[in-house]
């Protein structure tokens, strides 16, 4: 394998870069769903028993509720979310020209609120944001994650990847120590998964509620006694891009149910 890489690298630097990126995470990615308890899986499988559907339905209400100085609802501009928002979640985070950097779905929702709806931005972890992000994500359920890491996204992808492999905190651990080196192993009472992000926002039994991916990042940073970053920070958005790529091909499960 390594020998092949060498040859291609000599053939052309650009080709080699793409090839080596493609060989880092050999093997099919596995959703956290596969390691969940059968009862937890059953909760997710049935929308009527999935506690996150309350929040998702609330997002649906907000979709068609007028707000802000524009006096318009999301629906007034975008129509039926089942059409216009289908597949959106699979493409995020995406490069956002006005900022010259990546944007994720939560931040994109707030851009639309400010620029088009002329409404106040929602707090990152608010009931409204969780509702809308779940509702929009839900429109891509079952579709494969397919984030674009080429072109202008590449340097941000690289930063996200560096974050993933960087040790941090008093425990001095990187994401990779738990989710790459030890997925499938028990760490005391917890079964480590690949830490895939295809189900967010997720209902966590431990939270007794729905939370964003960046809340989970903060939790995993806190666990190793590291200073977390702000939700919506560049660091977390780049990390999200890298993880979306690691999970490429996984079906969107939003809103998932996890332990």
């Amino acid at each position: 394998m390594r020998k092949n890489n060498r040859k291609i690298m000599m053939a052309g630097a650009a080709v080699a870069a793409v090839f080596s990126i493609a060989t880092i995470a050999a093997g099919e990615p596995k959703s956290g769903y596969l390691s969940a308890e059968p009862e937890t899986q059953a909760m997710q499988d049935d929308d009527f028993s999935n506690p996150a559907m309350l929040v998702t339905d609330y997002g649906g209400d907000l979709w068609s509720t007028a707000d802000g100085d524009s006096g318009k609802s999301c629906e007034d501009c975008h129509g039926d979310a089942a059409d216009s928002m289908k597949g959106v979640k699979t493409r995020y985070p995406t490069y956002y020209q006005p900022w010259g950097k990546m944007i994720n779905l939560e931040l994109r929702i707030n851009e639309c609120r400010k620029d088009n709806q002329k409404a106040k931005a929602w707090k990152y972890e608010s009931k409204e944001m969780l509702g809308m992000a779940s509702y929009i994500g839900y429109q891509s359920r079952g579709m494969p994650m397919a984030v674009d890491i080429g072109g202008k996204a590449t340097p941000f992808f690289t930063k996200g990847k560096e974050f993933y492999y960087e040790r941090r905190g008093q425990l001095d651990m990187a994401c990779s120590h738990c989710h790459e080196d030890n997925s499938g192993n028990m760490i005391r009472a917890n079964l480590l998964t690949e830490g895939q992000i295809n189900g967010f926002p997720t209902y966590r039994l431990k939270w007794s509620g729905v939370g964003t991916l960046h809340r989970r990042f903060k939790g995993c940073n806190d666990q190793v006694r590291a200073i977390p970053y702000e939700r919506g920070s560049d660091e977390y958005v780049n990390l999200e891009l890298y993880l979306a790529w690691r999970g490429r091909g996984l079906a969107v499960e939003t809103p998932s149910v996890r332990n």
Partner: protein
Amino acid sequence: MKNYALPLLGMAALSIASLTVPADAKADELVPFKIVNGNSIPASLTGKAGDPAKGRDVAINRKKGNCLACHVMPIPEQPYHGEVGPDLNGLADRLSEGEIRLQLVNPKTNNPATIMPAFYRTEGLHRVAKNFQGKPMLTAEEVEDVVAYLMTLK
């Protein structure tokens, strides 16, 4: 923890200490130790033998050693033993006391890529949460207690 005697004691200690050590030295500075042959710390960090019963408690305690997160150990009353590191049964037949001490103090000396935290190290860490900055995961006494406990695993 909200103990009024503590700051006073700390100040007294600091004013004595400041006569002999640089001004920026921290009160919770690590005691010096010597690595021998690159794989062993033969001498006790405290100069005394640890207490194996206390060491067993530290290994269980999720806020201290939490060794059970990653290792199987002969601690049957605890339900969950991790699978991340090797089974520590029979450890003292495989490793010397000095090797065990180094593995606790800083396992990166043996394996730079290891997931196992260094329990007695404060330098070279990245973005440590405020409450834990400048502090090792275990005190020198606690390290010695765990070493004493691990030496009973024959």
